[in-house]
């Protein structure tokens, strides 16, 4: 089986990639169907929980605290994991992480690797690297397995094959089976289950990601629904876990909060079907487990965010995918349009932030209407829509702004900086639009209106603007003005008074 590279080359811009998706009715239908299911599941779970906002704030506090003291907790985690008999490795770059993993694979003379739950290995393109030294890598999460068969990459953080419907999946699996499989979820899952059993038994290495790493005991925790991660971490003789350096939380008590937030945010489940805590390799009394266990802690651009006042909170992300499920842009273009390993709002920020070659990636920050649904959905309150604006600003400040837009914005400031110029511009506009306005609207697909008018009719500048109308309106209002009711006046005065005290308290008194 070949590695996980996508077939064909992807277009270079997010716009061109989005066009591919917008013209793919299957994809749009499949993505809409599943994201709607997931987000309504989350909504129900939040309502049933009853105290969601407080737990969300607690989750945020835990993540803020951990990341602020990441050096301390990483050290604590590594020391405890080593004391448990785990080989802990630190990988600064993707190349380092790949080298470490391949060295282990060579040393244990591995022929095959079974994998589960790892977006980090996608980030490292590890399957490709394993393939290059003759080691077969098999994805065992159902969605990930489907994606691997299709030669694609995941298009969602937790539902990698979200863009495929069951008919497409049936075709892919029928090829594997050598017979026509009915597009029935049970039959398809049953086929994969049987197929993967053989692979679990054959594999020399089990490779996983990590949802949370518990510093106080050096343990790693995995959330899953299919039981395959448990197979991966118990059957093969060697286990390699790759984790982003920010996966740490201080204690098991903190896990309670995360275990409350993550499954509900991801799928609306109260808890995933399996939650495994793994503390070191197999001990003598254990019935199963790997003889040798490695944890590779991957930086790969994450530490660049530390100390950055605008982006450090990115490291708080718990990879639940909730921001993708509510994003109206993701809903229409799916994950591949984002071009990177991580998609949706978190991907649009994370990909440029993790890469040192920001220039190649910063256009995906434009693929957002800044509606804020992502920030509202985030279980640890990462202000993603603000971060998208910061990315755009950094691009402009670095002098890499689009030339036409830069000129336009200079013009904007010149006009809007003085009311006199603004008034003059409106007058000019009114004269200019005479050529194109029909029936109060503009249909012509001219210049910047081209895209707009493909879907809409644009409005025109009013015959009389508000400011032009003001003097007459003002006179008329003065003539017939009602007396303000005393209670209303009192309310307004009260508001003014409160404002004064708020200022004196110096910003205190804001409730959680």
């Amino acid at each position, binding site marked *: 089986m070949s590695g996980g590279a996508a077939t064909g080359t992807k277009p270079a811009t997010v*716009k061109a990639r989005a*066009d591919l998706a*917008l013209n793919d009715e299957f994809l749009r239908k499949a993505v809409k169907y599943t994201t709607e299911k997931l987000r309504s599941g989350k909504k129900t779970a939040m309502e049933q929980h009853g105290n969601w906002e407080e737990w969300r704030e607690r989750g945020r506090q835990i993540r803020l605290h951990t990341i602020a003291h990441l050096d301390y907790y990483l050290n604590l985690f590594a020391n405890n994991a080593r004391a448990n008999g785990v080989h802990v490795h630190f990988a600064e770059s993707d190349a380092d992480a790949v080298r470490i993993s391949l060295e282990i694979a060579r040393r244990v003379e591995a022929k095959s690797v079974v994998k589960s739950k790892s977006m980090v290995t996608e980030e490292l393109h590890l399957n490709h690297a394993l393939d290059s030294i003759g080691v077969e890598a098999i994805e065992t999460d159902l969605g990930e397995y489907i994606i691997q068969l299709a030669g694609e990459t995941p298009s969602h953080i937790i539902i990698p094959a979200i863009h495929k419907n069951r008919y497409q999946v049936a075709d892919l699996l029928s090829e594997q089976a050598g017979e026509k499989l009915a597009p029935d979820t049970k039959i398809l899952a049953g086929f994969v289950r049987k197929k993967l059993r053989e692979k679990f038994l054959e594999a020399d290495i089990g490779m996983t990601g990590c949802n949370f790493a518990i510093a106080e005991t050096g343990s790693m925790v995995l959330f899953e629904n299919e039981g395959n991660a448990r197979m991966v971490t118990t059957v093969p003789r060697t286990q390699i876990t790759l984790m982003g350096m920010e996966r740490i939380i201080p204690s098991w008590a903190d896990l309670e909060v995360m275990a409350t937030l993550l499954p509900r945010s991801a799928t609306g489940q109260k808890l995933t079907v399996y939650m495994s805590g793994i503390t070191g390799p197999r001990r003598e009394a254990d019935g199963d487990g790997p003889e040798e266990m490695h944890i590779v802690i991957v930086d790969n651009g994450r530490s660049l965010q530390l100390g950055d006042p605008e982006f450090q909170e990115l490291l708080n992300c718990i990879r639940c995918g909730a921001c993708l499920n509510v994003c*109206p*842009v993701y809903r*229409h*273009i799916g994950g591949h349009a984002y071009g990177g390993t991580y998609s949706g709002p978190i991907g649009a920020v994370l990909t440029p932030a993790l890469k040192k070659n920001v220039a190649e990636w910063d256009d995906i920050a*434009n*693929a*957002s*209407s*800044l*509606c*804020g*649904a992502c920030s509202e959905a985030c279980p640890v309150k990462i202000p993603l829509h603000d971060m998208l*604006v910061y*990315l755009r*600003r950094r691009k*402009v400040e670095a002098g890499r*702004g689009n030339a036409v837009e830069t000129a336009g*914005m200079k013009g*904007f*400031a010149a006009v*809007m*900086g*003085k*009311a006199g110029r*603004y008034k003059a511009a409106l007058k000019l*506009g009114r004269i200019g639009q005479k050529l194109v306005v029909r029936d109060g*609207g503009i249909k012509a697909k001219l210049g910047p209106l081209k*895209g707009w*008018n*493909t*879907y*809409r*009719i*644009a*409005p025109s500048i*009013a015959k009389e603007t*508000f*400011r032009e*109308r*003001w003097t007459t*309106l*003002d006179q008329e*209002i003065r003539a017939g*003005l*009602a007396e*303000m*009711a005393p*209670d*209303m*006046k009192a*309310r*307004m005065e009260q*508001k*003014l008074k409160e*404002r004064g005290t*708020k*200022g004196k308290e110096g910003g205190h008194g804001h409730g959680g």
Partner: protein
Amino acid sequence: MKVSMFVTCLSDAVFPRVGEAMVRLLARYGVKLDFPPSQTCCGQPAYNSGYWEEARTSGKTLLQAFEDSDFVISPSGSCTHMIHNYPKLFENDPVWLPRAKALQEKSYEFAQFFVQVLGVTDVGAVFPHKVTYHPSCHGSRLLGVKDEPIALMEQVKGLELVPLPFAEDCCGFGGTFAVKMADISGAMVTEKVDHIKETEAEVLVGLDMACLMNIGGNLRHRGEKVRVMHLAELLEEGVKLA
């Protein structure tokens, strides 16, 4: 007490009827709006596109125009929220930062001012029509104005409020987004209008003319007869009908 109107450049230039409705409605309660003509635009198009220097140039016209005002009221949740970004925008400017914070504190979106400050929900309007409401993202999500417009509409006699499916989904406007990512934006507004059609409402009402211009533009493009109104217009028309 000085209560000022921040009309927003869009309502000023394209939808003056919205500003006018607001002025008339407030006058019925003895609130005489003042209109400082030195105001231009809040600077949001520049801010969101990353051109913060240009946004500051534009925003300063508001900081100056409303220096002496006690309350500033605007027919846009999005532009009001932009004022809430000013402390961030002028973070490193010791001269303008206090003024930015002062303006943020006294700025209100129209429905917010009516319900939170004046304490009015029943304006005595009659509007015998089937209406659906699109809660604009910035006003509802970022500024937190969610219940106020509903409270105002619930008191309007004859008004039948039909829930809009997926109401909280963005209409696809997003300022320059609609130009830069025209096809994604087009897909979003198309879906929004599909949902509006499902409600069979005669009137679409909202609190942000930018979003309503976007949705209304698609409605018109598709030949749909749904009337698009700002809540201030609806209430003012309803009061006249009563």
